[in-house]
């Protein structure tokens, strides 16, 4: 579904990612692991179009590199970004409306908003309050719901567990598991190796802007060796 080839990503003059290849099939959950500064977020930014990049990113065979950020969203790429970036000055309801802004079927969208609200009652109780009043975990749920309301073909999740309490992290991964059951295609960026490997089918490990290893999730066992590698632990 999504094919990335010899992708280089730049921040100003600095090359953050040095030509990587990633492939994601339909309905797959692919996980991108790596330490801080490895280029994980940069990779996602090149898919959404917010970072300058060269190489090719193909969605269903069509190169999307020349498309604007907005057009890529319309083609079915949605992101729950790093730091969540919910519109804290808007109400929870309005955040959801923004998520579905590109949708034409507004009555269906309204129904889906209601469904999500019944799924996460806390969002419903405070639907008319500014989203900035939500807790970190609730904001993360809202960011994921916002991305999903655009009816994406592929969902990018950038460190959804960042800064969340373990219990809430578990809840977030529960949502990811549910999405997988519904055959959503997911590219997950994480530092929480154990939790990420539990939901993923395929793993790419990114180090200093290059892929150091990749393979089916089984190849990495329980992930503890991988964890040591990422944390720089030598036994």
């Amino acid at each position, binding site marked *: 579904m999504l094919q990335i080839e010899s992708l280089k990503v730049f921040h100003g003059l600095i090359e953050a990612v040095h030509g990587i290849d990633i492939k994601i099939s339909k309905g797959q959950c692919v996980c991108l692991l790596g330490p801080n500064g490895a280029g994980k977020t940069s990779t996602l930014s090149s898919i*959404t179009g*917010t970072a300058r990049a060269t190489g090719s990113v193909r969605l269903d065979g069509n190169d999307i590199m020349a498309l*604007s*950020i*907005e057009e890529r*969203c*319309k083609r079915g790429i*949605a*992101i729950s*970004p790093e*730091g969540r*970036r919910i*519109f*804290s*000055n*808007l109400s929870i309801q*309005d955040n959801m*409306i*923004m*998520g579905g*802004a*590109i949708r034409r079927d507004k009555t269906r969208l309204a129904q889906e908003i209601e469904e999500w609200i019944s799924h996460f009652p806390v969002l419903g109780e405070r639907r008319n309050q500014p989203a*900035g009043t939500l*807790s*970190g975990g609730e*904001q993360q749920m809202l960011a994921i719901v*916002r991305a999903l309301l*655009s009816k994406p073909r592929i969902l990018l999740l950038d460190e959804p567990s960042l*800064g*969340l309490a373990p219990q809430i992290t578990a809840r977030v991964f529960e949502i990811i598991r549910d999405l997988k059951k519904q055959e959503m295609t997911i590219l997950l960026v994480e530092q929480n190796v154990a939790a990420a490997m539990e939901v993923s089918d395929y793993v790419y490990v990114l180090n200093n802007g290059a892929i150091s290893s990749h393979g089916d999730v089984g190849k990495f066992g329980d992930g503890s060796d991988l964890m040591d590698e990422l944390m720089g632990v030598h036994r």
Partner: protein
Amino acid sequence: MDYVIQQVLNALSFGAEYALIALGLAIVFSIMGLVNFAHGEVIAFGGYSMIVVATLLTGNPWVLMIMVLAACVLIATVLERVAFRTVRGADLTTGLLTAFGVSIILQNLFLLLGSPRPMAATQFIFLDKTLTIGAIRVSSLQIYETVATVVAIIILLTFLRRTTLGIAMRAAALDFEMVRLCGIRANRVIAGAFAMSGLLAGLACIFIMARRGSVSPHMGFDPVLTAFVACVIGGFGSLPGAVLGGFLLGICEVAVQVLLPQSYGGLAQAVVFALVALILIWRPDGILSPAQEKGDKI
């Protein structure tokens, strides 16, 4: 008593005019961080197009009003497309200098194609009649101005709250890139903001024309400068702040004129700006400045 009511109305109508123009500045600033000093020339453009239409087509004031509104929306969106889109994302100063450049070019066009002297355009003067309600005599223009401003603000707020584009405009004030990531075209949001500021400028233009009955190349500069001050008092980038600042400034001006003894009349402006300075000492970011991001919430 009637004197008080007259002065209150006076203050409200001044405030309304400032608020209209300040809102136009604030709506553009909140979304793209541009202090649009060419806003005054948008108002002047409305005045000149009124003369052109009145000479060539019709002097019907109602048609003229619609033409003024349309002309202001048109020029505001054209300026966005031609001048401001190219410096989008550039430094704040670049935008500011561009705005001044556009303003100077337009003023000189008015000088060359129009006249350095005020040109008469009296079709809207009829709005300004003296009404006698019981014992009080008030200007009808002041009532129209206050009411029209309140109605315009209500329509604007409804638009910003109820429509997808309106919600996107509020969201863009916080995180423009995220709005684009939601698939909403940046150009549409910004052009929408400029169109709206043009509409507000057009409304202000109608009332300014009703009061002055003439246009001149520099007619927009003073009102915009005052509106800028109103924005600063209210908190730059905050729309309610712009309205509050506008009315506050109008009330201050009238109050100072009324309360200051005749012989100190020349000090009116100084007293008003001293009050402004005091407000800014109390609240350096303006009264309703948008809340600062206090880092990531965990």
